[in-house]
């Protein structure tokens, strides 16, 4: 199977090994292991509430796992000092669902922010770099707008320009397609593709938009209930024989994932003999 091929090659950019994560009393991950291959677009899919965003936060070391490790480019990201971690974070960009632009800065200043923080480049060069990134996402003309004046899709594109400004080697997209109209969706898919190919990045997309994600991903992991249920190329996933995967891909209302939230027997419940 392809999944084992990749993990044995050992040159995956991100290697997650036996990762456990607990929030409150709920076990979000129960020993999840997966590899994100270098280059290309890797999608992590699954129903809402399975901790896909949490997984991105664990890769970015914003959360600490209770057990297991995350290797980024061979380094255990959770064992680094704060300084070492920040060095690694400069090599990864993250695109938040909301865009996470700083609301008190204009689009231009938002994109320039990482450069001004981490480099001492002259203002003229910063302007040049920022404008090229903004042009790439189609927002060169919107440089003086404030984040509150942007639509959701524009905010995400501006955030993408900001995530790209430090030339990261990896970029993580948190639900990039959620809540987009068809045109912005098309724009984002196109952008994701061009950005990934022209800059030679590794992209991780977390999403539950099946068709859009399968259309651009090179490799897919499907996560549910704290473990990886299936991995493979989009074609392999589409042809999967697992009932669970089929239900997820085709969006069937009932199947291995029941329509009903776990509940006591219907009749007992209705006639008030349910105990509680």
């Amino acid at each position, binding site marked *: 199977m392809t999944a084992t091929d990749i993990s044995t090659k050992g040159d995956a950019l991100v290697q997650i090994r036996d990762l456990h994560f607990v929030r409150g009393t709920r076990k979000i991950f129960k020993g999840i292991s997966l590899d994100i291959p270098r280059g290309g677009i890797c999608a992590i899919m699954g129903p809402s509430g399975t901790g896909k965003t949490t997984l991105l*936060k664990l890769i*970015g070391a*914003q959360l600490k796992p209770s057990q297991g490790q995350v290797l980024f480019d061979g380094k255990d990201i959770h064992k680094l000092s*704060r300084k070492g971690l*920040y*060095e690694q*974070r*400069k090599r*990864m*960009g*993250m695109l*938040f*669902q*909301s865009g*996470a*632009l*700083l*609301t008190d800065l204009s689009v231009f200043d938002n994109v320039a*922010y*990482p450069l001004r*923080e*981490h480099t001492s480049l002259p203002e003229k060069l910063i302007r040049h770099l920022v404008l090229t990134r903004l042009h790439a996402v189609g927002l060169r003309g919107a440089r003086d707008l404030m984040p509150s004046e942007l639509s959701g899709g524009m905010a995400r594109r501006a*955030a993408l320009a*900001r995530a790209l400004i*430090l030339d990261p080697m990896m970029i993580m997209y948190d639900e990039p397609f959620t809540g987009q109209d068809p045109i912005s969706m098309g724009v984002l898919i196109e952008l994701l593709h061009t950005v990934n190919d022209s800059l030679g990045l590794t992209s991780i997309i977390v999403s539950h938009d099946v068709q859009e994600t399968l259309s651009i991903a090179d490799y897919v992991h499907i996560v549910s209930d704290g473990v990886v249920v299936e991995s493979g190329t989009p074609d392999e996933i589409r042809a999967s024989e697992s009932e669970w995967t089929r239900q997820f891909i085709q969006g069937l209302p009932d199947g291995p994932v029941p329509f009903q939230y776990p509940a006591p027997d219907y009749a007992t419940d209705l006639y008030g003999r349910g105990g509680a």
Partner: protein
Amino acid sequence: MLDFLQNLGRRGLAFFERLGRGHMFLLRILGSLGQLIIRPWLVIQQLYSVGVLTLMIILVSGLFVGMVLALQGYNTLVGFNAEESLGVVVALTLVRELGPVVTGLLFAGRAGSALTAEIGLMKATEQLSGLEMMAVDPFKRVLAPRFLAGMIALPLLAAMFSAIGIYGGYLVGVELLGVDGGAFWSQMQASVDFSNDIINGVIKSVVFGFIVTWIAIFEGYDCIPTSEGVSRATTRTVVNASLAVLGIDFLLTALMFNV
């Protein structure tokens, strides 16, 4: 009974856990203060929003508090033919107590709630996570400048509160009620001691600035990142900061003036 004990234990644990987080938070803030020397503009921006924007309410309140003090003080003092001591009464009340305390309360309501809401919303809209992922430490860029600005602003505001309050007392006492102006000022000058009264008042206002700003930014940073969580954190800031100001004022007064 068992439920009650269980509940008590859970709440107690939650309280101490939060207290611990609050202190760890404070340590990280204090550790981040040093780098502000090379980025003074971050503090200056915050001084504007926590200090200058709070100035108006402080000045108006100070003026009225001073005027009311003069009215009340005059009524009592005139019965002993001691109305010339009005200046002393007004000045000591303001400099020792009302200046720092009322400024602390107003600051908690005006600037503290704004700080909590701002930081809470930055958390809710993932701006703080965004900074983290850009390898920018939010403690250094967002929290430490606000903390320092609050600590600088509150003593200055308290001083202005007392100054304009004394002027309000002068307006009512001398201009309106006819107390002798020379006696008003000279008695004040003779009785208000620099190190005993003024410095102690300044120490109080520095302590209040520290407590109120700490509570405000911690509540913001520690809030549940939803609209309900931010609103609850804002309320908690005003309530806890006000109670802290009043409680600590009692302790400080006992230490400073009665031992």
